[in-house]
């Protein structure tokens, strides 16, 4: 549709950046959006699990996870509610590291979180240095409201794909929609294509 023009609206323009996807605005703070209460996850019982389509499982407890080689990455975040935050610093384990040596023909992943949240994405989007299970933010432990002790970080997709309080990834032959994907949000969620809602 040709845009309706609002005379008298100027806008702030401070957001002009080639790193800002369409329809997004910049924030300096770090908003929190969660569908329910923040789960309190005990590190003594924390476990991260990858399960393949054949039922093979690999698990890590917190000390084992901390012992994995970690990356320090600086990435831009884009939330479907329209805020973007540039150059955020994270520490976490690449999903490539977690998948190393796992035999799978799966094309899809269903991510599970403590508290029951789920999200789905193609497995290829978790490979190739594009995704991490992050436990550090801005030089400190990741706080619970931002997904601590550990969250998925998939910065090239809208942030709802970066499941907070992540507990595992199921590798699947078929795609199964996650929490927001079942509620009408886009199945893939590429911010550069502005794939916010299912029909976008």
């Amino acid at each position, binding site marked *: *549709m040709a*845009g*309706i*023009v*609002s*005379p*008298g*609206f*100027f*806008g*702030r*323009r401070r*957001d002009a950046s080639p790193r800002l996807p369409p*329809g997004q*605005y910049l*924030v*300096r*703070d*770090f*908003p*929190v*959006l*969660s*569908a*329910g*209460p*923040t*789960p309190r996850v005990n590190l003594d019982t924390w476990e991260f699990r990858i399960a393949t389509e054949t039922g093979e499982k690999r698990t890590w407890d917190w000390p084992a996870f901390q012992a994995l080689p970690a990356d320090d990455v600086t990435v831009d975040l884009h939330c479907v*509610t*329209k805020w973007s935050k540039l150059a955020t610093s994270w520490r976490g384990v690449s999903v490539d590291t977690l998948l190393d040596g796992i035999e799978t023909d799966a094309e899809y992943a269903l991510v599970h979180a403590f*508290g*029951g949240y789920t999200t789905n994405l193609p497995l290829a989007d978790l490979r190739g240095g594009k995704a991490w299970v992050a436990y550090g*933010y*801005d030089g400190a432990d990741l*706080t619970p*409201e*931002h997904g601590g002790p550990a969250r998925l970080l998939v910065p090239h997709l809208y942030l709802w794909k970066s499941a907070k309080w992540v507990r595992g990834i199921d590798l699947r032959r078929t795609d199964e929609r996650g*929490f*927001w994907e*079942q*509620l*009408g949000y886009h199945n893939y969620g590429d911010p550069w294509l502005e794939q916010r*809602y*299912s*029909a*976008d």
Partner: protein
Amino acid sequence: MARAAVLRGLSWRVATVVGVRDETAAGRTIVFELPGWPGHAAGQHVDVRLTAPDGYSTQRSYSIASAPGGDLVELTVERLPDGEVSPYLTQVLSVGDQIELRGPIGGWFVWDDASPDPVLLIAGGSGVVPLAAMVRARFAVGSSAPFRLLYSVRDPASLLFGAELDHYQRTDLSFGVHLAFTRTAPADVPRPVGRIDAAFLTDATAGGPFSAPDAPAVFACGPTGFVEAVANLVVAAGHEARRIKTERFGPSGSQR
């Protein structure tokens, strides 16, 4: 869980302003006419897109304040001093003007108007807007679901929909409002100024099916810090996390 229908195509619509009402010094309700509006569920929001004469455009999300029904949709917008969009919506946009809008959006933070379950609503500031839509929907459909609204607000002048909420609770014993004034309280309110805490929650949920054993549907909306705090209080009071739906806005305050 009840899930609203998956969204159909959400194309941008032209919305025409057919009314404005100042609610408080910073809050204004804007009534839009949207021909062919598919209807919404109480608690859902819309995306608004503003385009400047030179083509610059920006989008924001706003909760719907009105009950479902017809082609009219009301948004109640609170002006943020440093906002890019809210000053325009609350100070410039006038009757007869048009903007672009799409929705309804969000199938989680919604009240099912067919459910008889008790409902506990907890609002912080302008977070009352989607909860007011639920209250209005309850009265619009004639639901007898017990409702209780706990509403935290800075001072009496910042109270949104005060007279309407008061009218509802005077006409229906199964709807009640408990106000927490955080800075200045009216002279006739005996309770001291303060935030919603465990004692307030206990008092305000007494005398009705709003305690943990009653398993009410809980909706909490407001600034991030407020929702974090009250959601934790409700969990600590024994409510199951799966019964608690939250909507947060604004900065977290805890991290840059």
